[in-house]
């Protein structure tokens, strides 16, 4: 049974309130992120979005993922972005970065279309057998800890993908180093 099918009375009101709060913060931050002229400001708003998403993850019984989100996404990836922005001295923002009004309206329409279609797709329903009983994940977390539900499948069913991902990271590191070299350095080293 999906949580949506349960009467809301079973969930604590505080829980619901906080859920909506963090969701709203995420969306507002995203909107602000998209509309900032300065790249640094935009990056910071994106960081804010990610924080609120981390909160949402925790509330959805994915505590480990929430922690990882903060550590990796907000803590590493966005930091790299900010490094690059500073490196290229783009901090002050280019004037007239976005396209014209007409483009914005069209993009908005396209966006709404995608939204609508996504919702049309969510009308689909899944088999009852696949759904877990309510609170199952929370129970698991209680019993075995937050990491165990991930670690289990990760090192059993998805072991191959795990190993391949390490290779992927290696390739990415090498690529980044090579691409980042200065002109003279590339030929020398």
């Amino acid at each position: 049974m999906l949580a949506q099918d349960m009467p809301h009375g079973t969930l604590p009101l505080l829980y619901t309130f906080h859920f909506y709060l963090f969701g709203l913060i995420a969306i507002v931050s995203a909107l602000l992120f998209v509309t900032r002229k300065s790249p640094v400001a935009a990056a910071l708003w994106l960081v804010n979005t990610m924080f609120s998403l981390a909160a949402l993850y925790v509330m959805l019984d994915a505590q480990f993922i929430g922690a990882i989100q903060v550590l990796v996404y907000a803590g590493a990836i966005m930091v790299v972005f900010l490094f690059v922005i500073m490196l290229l001295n783009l901090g002050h923002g280019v004037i007239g970065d976005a396209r014209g009004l007409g483009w914005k309206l069209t993009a908005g329409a396209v966006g709404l279309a995608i939204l609508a279609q996504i919702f049309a797709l969510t009308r689909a329903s899944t088999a009852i057998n696949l759904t877990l009983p309510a609170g199952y994940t929370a129970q698991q977390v209680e019993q075995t800890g937050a990491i165990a539900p991930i670690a289990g499948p990760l090192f059993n069913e998805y072991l191959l993908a795990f190993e391949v991902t390490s290779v992927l990271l290696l390739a990415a590191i090498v690529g980044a180093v090579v691409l980042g070299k200065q002109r003279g350095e590339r030929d020398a080293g």
Partner: protein
Amino acid sequence: MLPLLQAATANTHPLTRTIAEWVWLVPLLPLLGFVINGVLSLAAAYHPGPADPGLAHDETTGGGASEHAHADHDTDGGATGNDHHPVARHRFSGLTSIVGPGVLILSFLLSAAIFLAMRGAGEISAPFVQRYFSWMPVGDMHIDAALQLDQLSMMMTLVVTGVGALIHIFSVGYMQDDPGYPRYFAYLNLFVFFMLLLVLGGNYPLVFIGWEGVGLCSYLLIGFWFSEKANADAGKKAFIVNRIGDFGFLIAMFMIFANMRTLDFTGVQQGAASLPVGGTLVTAICLFLFLGCVGKSAQIPLYVWLPDAMAGPTPVSALIHAATMVTAGVYLIARSSMLFSIAPVAQIVVVLIGALTAIFAASIGLKQWDIKKVLAYSTVSQLGYMFIGVGSGAYVTGLFHLVTHAFFKALLFLGSGSVIFALHRAYHHTGNHDDAQDMRNMGGLKTYMPVTFWLMWIATLAIAGIPPFAGFFSKDEILGALFARAQHSTIASAHLFGIPGSAWLYFAYLLGLVAAFMTAVYMTRMMIYTFHGPNRTGEKERGYLAEAPWIMTGPLVVLGILTAVGGWINLPEFAPLGRVGALEHWLDPVLGEPTARVIAGAGETSTGLEYGLVALAVLIAVGGIALAWTRLKPETLVPKREAPQEEGFEKVLINKYYVDEIYDEAIVEPVVGISRGLLWRGVDAGLIDGLGVNGSAYFARFVGWIGSQLQSGQLGTYAWVLVAGVLAVLGAFSIR
């Protein structure tokens, strides 16, 4: 012997295992001659020897187009028709002189042997069909390459090979100084091959092959001296006008096949037995077949090519346009007699057009000055008589006239060829450029060319219908048969445009009589102006006028004998000079039944009436000759270059009733205009080139331009396209 696909008749046919099985060799010999002569002609063309004339030489030896052409146009505006050509003997003329006529003589001898075998085989009631290979097996249509040997095809084969051989021998002398000598014989042999295919063919498509082939050879031979544009134009005219008729023939074949699922003559005969008499279908088939005949045999309205065809060498005119090709139409009707005899309305049409053509052409012949043109119109007129014959259901009679006409018309043409040859030679010696074919330049030739003179008079009497010469029996029989059928026959009972058939037939009889009168007049006129009276050729040339060499006069003598006694192959009952009705008995197994069907049990015409009609015909002929003899004064004629212009009705006649001009204005100009304006500029250049070819290129470039706009190199554009794709995919899913 060639392997047979399947013996058409069981081994019980009287002709199996006789020489008749070699019938395939009869057309193949001339084909072999064509190949050999063609190779000789090409060999000399590509490897000219030291003695071969170059082009410059031709210009100066008295044959150059620039020198002669313009002086020699006839006043009637047709093709020049004169035999002006370069004079230089061909390198291989010796070999060609043997091969060309040789294959024809061999073919004739073989045909004669087969004929004797047929005579000796007793009663032959079924045709002897030899199938050699399966030619067109398509669906349920099986057309084999089959030759059919029966009494009718045998008779035609003898005429074609016999008269053909004589004309080939004549040509050896006539064309000996022409640089295109082997080419001439190649084409002539090819023509005989196709003509034999036509008469021996066992089904309509094979006959059609021969039909088209003789049309082709006619084109090649009419335009033999093609360096003069008028000759090439005459060749084109003949071919194109013929084509109109061929269209009719094709339609008729389609209709026959659609209804009878077969195109063999034996099959069609069986199929015709089940068709309703006088029905629309069989009438339509016969009318379309007749359209083909109108084209090939030069009847109204498609006769216009025949007078222009006189632009070819005179032996060609003798063979093709007198004795054989133009008679193919008559043969076709006789061959299709099982269809015609049950379509009385179509038969009325045939008789009517034949009669109208007879009188129309005869009237034009009264005022022509070119000797060959007179004979050309005479041919058209006599063909009209033949169609009266076969059209009225008297098939044997029409074919009888075909045979006798072949004799005396070939004799007339070859005789005129001798005359023209003599005048040419005379002009050549003195460097004169006058027209060697115009009768106003002749006159009094009987003293210089006595043999030709006497022989041509025999032919003239024959064509006029004076007994006991050939033409008398055949022409009289046609008119007599027409009169009998006007009184009682299936045709007389039928109606065309509401008028009863008997009225039409009597009308045709009247026209036939008038045409006979005119025939006598214009032929006598021709003889008087050419051979009698004072000589107008010129003082210097007179000394060179002489009889043609014996190689040319010899065939004339043979033809003269045939003309004299040829009529005796089908003597009527009231004149039992010999075996009565021999030809009719011979052709009875093939044509007896259709003839009887038309007569429909009429009683015998009374002997008194017969004698009366005969007497009337002879009287008319004698009257015509007498009129011409007394009224025409050759002394008043002047040579062509000093001749006065014609006036009044004479002018109309000499301009052939302006028919060519009318055709040109009414038909040719609009067609050319439409072709040029609409089809060429509009459809071809505009639609196909502009829209199709250029347009599709433009469209491809346009599509490419659109594509190129997507390759802007801008990342933003690519992002848009990507998102658009996502929308599309999502949309597909969500709608479903």
